[in-house]
């Protein structure tokens, strides 16, 4: 029997995430921390595993070191397989040509041999910048039952936001008859989620044609999908209902983290029926000291809390000194905060050290915006960082 896979997933993880500014100076967007213990890529990877897809190519390009390290051999997701499993696909040098990935379609095209070696019936294209739980198996089933050549996952968005998305105009049965990329006057509120199922042969055909097409930007949304529609291929919209958040901006990343808080959170990562797997840190249980306060927050192992934490998300190994207050903030792993400091409405990236009597950020009500402190920085005693600032180098306080 010839071995084959029903479906191979290709995860586009090369995005720079320039709108996350300091948070993606040294790491790719899919490697950005989320929800105290996760990285963004955990969500599509866990969705794959939970949907029974065990062959995933992860296409990296921008600052892949942290991401490569994090994925490793795929063991945390049970993707360390001898046939299939997770594979990191970085741009490579070829005999006749070598190139960076020019567009999303080009990235897949350059790795078409990777897909073909598994001889799949379907190829699932994913992106690494969304937080959601989705059963891809249902979508693939829908694709098969509707005899589709390409199926695009779509979600209803509020009409006032529709002009930020690629909009799918469909007939009643879900057949797509028109794409509109960020339309000024949207006809529908069905937005593409950037998740595509292709029948493999069709994908190969259009990728190969696109690779030699002049003036193509080698992009799925701009080139491949419109070409397929114009050629009369059957394209379906698969409507997804549930939580889905693009975390491409500081504000949306912040909001998505806050959606985890509360008794009945908007988005529940702790739900065991669809487990989000991740590479877990090796740290002892968190220690909450005598003078500490932990109010409506998420806190990871290895933390030592002696101050107050309110409405915040703390990743592993964060230290909060006596008298300090962390409010409405996201603190990523290995951050140390001294005594009597205040961090409010801010995101503090990994490995940053904050001294005593420091004030970072301004209350949300002041409308100054979210303050971001980049990774590996030192913020000295008595420093003041006002709301809405983007800190990318060390800050000294006035003594």
């Amino acid at each position: 029997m010839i071995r084959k896979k029903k479906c191979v997933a290709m995860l586009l993880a090369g995005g720079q995430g320039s709108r996350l500014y300091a948070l993606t100076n040294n790491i790719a967007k899919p490697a950005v921390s989320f929800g105290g213990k996760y990285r963004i890529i955990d969500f599509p990877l866990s969705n794959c595993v939970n949907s029974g897809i065990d062959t995933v190519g992860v296409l990296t390009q921008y600052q892949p070191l942290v991401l490569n390290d994090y994925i490793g051999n795929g063991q945390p997701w049970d993707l360390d397989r001898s046939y299939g499993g997770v594979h990191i696909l970085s741009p490579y040098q070829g005999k006749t040509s070598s190139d960076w990935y020019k567009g999303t379609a080009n990235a897949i095209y350059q790795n078409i041999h990777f897909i073909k070696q598994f001889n799949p019936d379907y190829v699932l294209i994913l992106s690494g910048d969304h937080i959601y739980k989705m059963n891809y198996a249902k979508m693939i089933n829908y694709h098969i039952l509707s005899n589709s050549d390409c199926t695009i996952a779509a979600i209803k968005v509020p009409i006032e936001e529709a002009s930020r998305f690629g909009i799918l105009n469909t007939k009643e049965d879900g057949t797509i008859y028109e794409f509109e990329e960020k339309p000024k006057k949207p006809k529908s509120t069905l937005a593409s989620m950037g998740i595509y199922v292709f029948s493999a042969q069709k994908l190969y055909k259009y990728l190969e044609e696109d690779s030699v097409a002049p003036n193509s930007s080698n992009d799925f949304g701009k080139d491949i999908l419109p070409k397929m529609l114009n050629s009369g291929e059957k394209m379906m919209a698969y409507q997804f209902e549930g939580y889905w958040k693009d975390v491409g901006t500081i504000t949306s990343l912040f909001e998505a983290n806050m959606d985890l808080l509360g008794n009945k959170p908007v988005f529940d990562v702790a739900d065991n029926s669809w487990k989000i797997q991740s590479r877990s840190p090796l740290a002892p249980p968190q220690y909450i000291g005598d003078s500490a306060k932990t109010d409506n927050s998420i806190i990871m192992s290895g933390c030592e809390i002696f101050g107050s934490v309110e409405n915040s998300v703390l990743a592993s190994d964060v230290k909060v000194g006596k008298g300090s207050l962390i409010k409405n903030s996201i603190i990523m792993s290995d951050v140390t905060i001294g005594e009597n400091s205040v961090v409010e409405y801010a995101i503090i990236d990994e490995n940053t050290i904050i001294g005593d009597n420091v004030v970072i950020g301004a209350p949300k009500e002041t409308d100054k915006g979210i303050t971001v402190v980049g990774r590996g920085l030192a913020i000295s005693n008595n420093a003041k960082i006002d709301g809405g600032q983007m800190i990318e180098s060390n800050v000294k306080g006035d003594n």
Partner: protein
Amino acid sequence: MRAVGIIFSNIHDNNIPELVRVRSFGSIPFGGRYRLIDFPLSNMVNSGMDTVGIITKSNYQSLMDHVGSGKDWDLARKDGGVIILPPFGDVESNTLYNTRLEALKGITSFLFRADEEYVVMTDCDSVCRINYNEVLDYHIKSQADITLVYKKRVPISNSIDYGTTFEIQDGRIVNLSYNSPLENKQANVFINVFVMKRSLLQNIVMDSISHNKKSFTNDIIAENLKSMKIMGFEHKGFYAGISSLQAYYESNMAMLDSSNRNEIFGDRSVFTKIRDSAPTKYGNTAVVKNSMIADGCVIEGEVENSIIFRNVKVGRGAKIKNSIIMQNSVLGENCTLNCIITDKNVTVKDRVCLSGNDNHPFYVGKGIMI
């Protein structure tokens, strides 16, 4: 590496019958996310040892599940790694071993197959950080036949097992007494770590088979204090001996002290099986003081001076004090717990009130609903 490791996972079962009813001694949960075997196993890994045999006896499913391939200790190796040694029963009398020496008789093939020059043997009844390299260096430098590690301490009160104590002159053990009440005096208490040449251990085991010797301490150590050079190595760091339920309780509580905690966990090198849990969530009614809390918990009540394992739910208005709550327990709303040890999967219903005493904690067995 110079030494092969041997861990006895069942040797002290009589000390805490409650906790070993459903598991081996080595898989007793400790400190919010660990099991007792993690401490000797991590000590061996951190000392650079890469072949470790774990001797089991009964109820070792949980231990096998925990250790698995050894991957979490970096001991899933082609060459060496961690090897679980199931008990080697006597077919004629249909019994398992009862003593350390009998257990060693069952693993002679493991001992002969190893190629390390030395052997480090330890039990799972202690929480401490020992660099076995230092013990080995001392052993070699002092040209000892056998080196035993001890801790100077006052034995924990109301323990049934005072253990073995040494009288030491110039580093050499000259006298040994077993289980004699010490009236709260400091003594050199053996912490069940042995270092010797593997060839010597092989000879001891073969000899004890032919002469039907039973006890390592009585028949080997005590008998040979004069004929062999048996040295004592003092462990100066933190040490918690798990010799009774009370000692288990106090050892856990000792982890709430920051200097102890830093010594044991500060450099993040106590390894354990990694399980995925979501981060712990605190509701806006949560009040937590001086407690260790593992991942996956949902805390909405009050927790003070307690150790909370993974995936525990503490309901609104609940007051949990001076307690150890093992994983997957659910503590209902407005319940009150003081000096309680709940085993795994315990459910305490709303408004239930339970109390032990800090010199006699009350133990609630696995899966019980109150």
